[in-house]
């Protein structure tokens, strides 16, 4: 299953809910303001690091660059472009957007 999160973890609990419900082996894609969840140094970093033991984390590159955060992505997170976004949707049988 692919989970998509588009809200900042510092403003909404969408990412927290997602990580709570995502089962082992799921993919989580962070887009829009959700990309802040994949960055280093913040108080949410620990929760994301812990979740990465069970889920594969992706982040949308154009949204990272727009926000000036492209140089501080957490190790182990894969940066994808729009084509990669489409591939992720196509590769997974279903998808949940945590709006």
């Amino acid at each position, binding site marked *: 299953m692919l989970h998509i999160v*588009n809200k*900042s973890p*510092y403003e909404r609990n969408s990412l927290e809910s997602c990580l709570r419900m995502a089962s082992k082996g799921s993919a989580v894609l962070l887009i829009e303001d959700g990309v802040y969840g994949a*960055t280093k140094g913040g108080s949410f970093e620990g929760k994301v690091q812990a979740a990465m033991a069970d889920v594969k984390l992706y982040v949308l590159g*154009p949204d990272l*660059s*727009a*926000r*000036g955060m*492209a140089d501080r992505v957490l190790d182990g997170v894969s940066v994808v472009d729009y084509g990669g976004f489409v591939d992720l949707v196509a590769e997974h049988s279903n998808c949940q957007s945590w709006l």
Partner: protein
Amino acid sequence: MNDEMDMEEGGVVKQFMFVNRKAPYGTIYALEGLEVVLISAAFEQDVSMAFIDDGVYELKKGQDTKALGQKNFSPTYRALEGYDIEKLYVERESMEARGLTEDDLLVDVIVLDRAEMAAKMDEQDVLISF
């Protein structure tokens, strides 16, 4: 005449603070807030901006929106000085929670701790929230 009022040039000058709490691009708040601040400069008021919570992300250096197809409005924060809007207050706790330091910001700001920011907000005549 009390010290909050300045009747020069026939108008009352009030303290206006624009409170920015949203990250850029994900919603329209940051851009709309910036546009209203620029408009406010025409009214010769005592204008300041506060950046708290995700609002601190508005000032992050290195924003590049080419791949996004949206306008990068971050250089505009550096132009505010030219409109006599020089009081940009950033809450230290919000910055630190997001792993940011003053060096990560694209414009000179005044960093306040939470209590100082609260006091600064208390002393305003008008607060406008984005």
